[in-house]
């Protein structure tokens, strides 16, 4: 298990005079769950936005399975198998939960105008996508909410729905931006279980930004720590927990906050 799924090499991003990301480099190994940690403002979400194509980097390269992806628009990156979630879940509030999920489905010929004219919603693929969506709902234990407007869901349920929608998009690498933030503890455990299952059963690679250190240390195989736009350390959870720079810049403050 030494192959790199994702290679982030020296990316830079400035906002005005501030270097939000200042030459960050790290790798995500195929089949791993890699955690990205660091204090607020360390540049984690900016890194995510660059990887997923929502922001253009001022320098550096992003390589996914041997293919340069930097400079590609977001939809091309998602089609390449790199699917993300957002820190504040971007669910489609005025569509049903089921529709939210079905939107994520890949290879839908009915999304093309001409075929949509001919077939409407009656196609084999559409039935398959519906079944896939129902299966995901089942997995997330949200089946009873299928016809509800997504806007009526609670914050935690929205996080689950967004995770499910990302799964529908058949990711090879899943980018999760703070999946546990604002989620009730019981639901958080459920979410973590899902993430673990995904790797085990579907062989998915996962990159996760998370502030909940306990969670990060328990599910990640590898942790990358950032501070002030740079990667200051990377290693196994155990190595990171004892790394002095990480403790000084981040873990120390987290520990203090938990006292």
């Amino acid at each position, binding site marked *: 298990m030494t192959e790199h799924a994702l290679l982030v090499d020296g990316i830079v991003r400035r906002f005005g005079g501030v270097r939000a990301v200042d030459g960050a480099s790290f790798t995500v190994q195929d089949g791993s769950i890699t955690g990205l940690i660091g204090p607020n403002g360390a540049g984690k979400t900016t890194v995510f936005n660059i990887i997923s194509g929502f922001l253009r980097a001022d320098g550096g390269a992003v390589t996914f399975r041997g293919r340069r992806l930097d400079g590609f628009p977001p939809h091309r990156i998602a089609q390449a198998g790199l699917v993300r979630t957002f820190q504040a879940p971007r669910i489609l509030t005025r569509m049903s939960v089921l529709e939210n999920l079905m939107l994520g489905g890949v290879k839908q010929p*009915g999304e093309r105008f001409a075929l949509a004219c001919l077939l409407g919603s009656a196609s084999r693929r559409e039935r398959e996508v519906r079944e896939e969506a129902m299966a995901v709902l089942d997995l997330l234990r949200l089946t009873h909410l299928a016809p509800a407007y997504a806007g009526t869901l609670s914050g935690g349920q929205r996080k689950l729905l967004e995770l499910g929608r990302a799964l529908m998009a058949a990711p090879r690498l899943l980018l999760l931006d703070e999946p546990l933030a604002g989620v009730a503890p019981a639901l958080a455990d459920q979410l973590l279980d899902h993430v673990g299952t995904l790797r085990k059963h579907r062989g998915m690679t996962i990159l996760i930004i998370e502030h909940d250190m306990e969670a990060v240390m328990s599910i990640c195989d590898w942790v990358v720590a950032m501070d002030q736009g740079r990667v200051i350390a990377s290693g196994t959870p155990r190595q990171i927990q004892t790394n002095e720079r990480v403790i000084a810049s981040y873990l120390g403050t987290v520990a203090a906050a938990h006292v």
Partner: protein
Amino acid sequence: MDILNPAFWVFVGVVAGIYGLLALALYVQFSMAGLPNFGHVAFMALAAYTMALLVIRADVALVWAGVAGIAAAVALGLLLGIPSVRLRANYLAIATVAGSEMIRYLSTNLNLTGGAVGSVGMLGPTHFATYTNAWQPFIESITAALRHAVGSVATTDFSMFCLVWVTLGLLLMLFRRLERSPWGRVMKAIREDEEAAASLGKHVEAYKLQALVLGGIVGGLAGILWALEIGVFSPDDFQPTLTFYAYLILILGGMNRVWAIPVGAVLFGVLYSGTRFLSFFPLSLVDTGERAYLRLLIVGLVLVLLMAVRPQGMFGKREELLLEK
């Protein structure tokens, strides 16, 4: 005109159908893809002018002139849309207003388009130009056929009424089907949150351009039918307020419900034509010249009140509208 005269109501029906088409064109862009076009009438005007000019000055067959008119409307949509699809929605609103005002200024001031006189002046002041020579026999043949079926009710206006409403009906069915398709699902997602759609691999710009093209086609069609219905037209027939009549129809119908468009169109047709041609109390207090202002005032008032009090229209669910994005 007599309120009981069926000919009057047939005409109201034609007007309602054509505005319904314009509203449908707007629906594709605004309700489906979230692109606010505040100058939609330009599609109608450009298509009508292109068709009339090709027939009158270049002797092109009416059918091809009509197709070219619609193509011109599509081209305008793309011209204004391509730079704007990447921008925030409000910029598109401004760009479309500017585009439609430009068309209006040019059509009013160019000799080519007959200036303020309009289509009859397209060959200069000494000729009477007309583009309906090929249309008259066609619509007459439809009228003759209809007369066999329904008797003396069938007039040319009645034929037009059938033509417009059949077109509108077919398009409504098509758009309803589209809306329920995976294509429609992507459109809806883009309207709600385009970044979310992009994050799932949907090519947002391509869909927005499709909406602009579709809106251009349907809007252009509305312009051509309108030109054929009234026989001669001038820049005044394509006032900027027409766009907002179409918005009013959409709002009457609830913005996000395609089948509510014909209902909105009929209500609007009655409101609009009713205040224009009928003369009963209290309308009789206002003299005919001033009634146009009264009509527009009422349109404005209804627009404000509906948006303020019942933004979901007659059929929409308020909860749906108020769900936060």
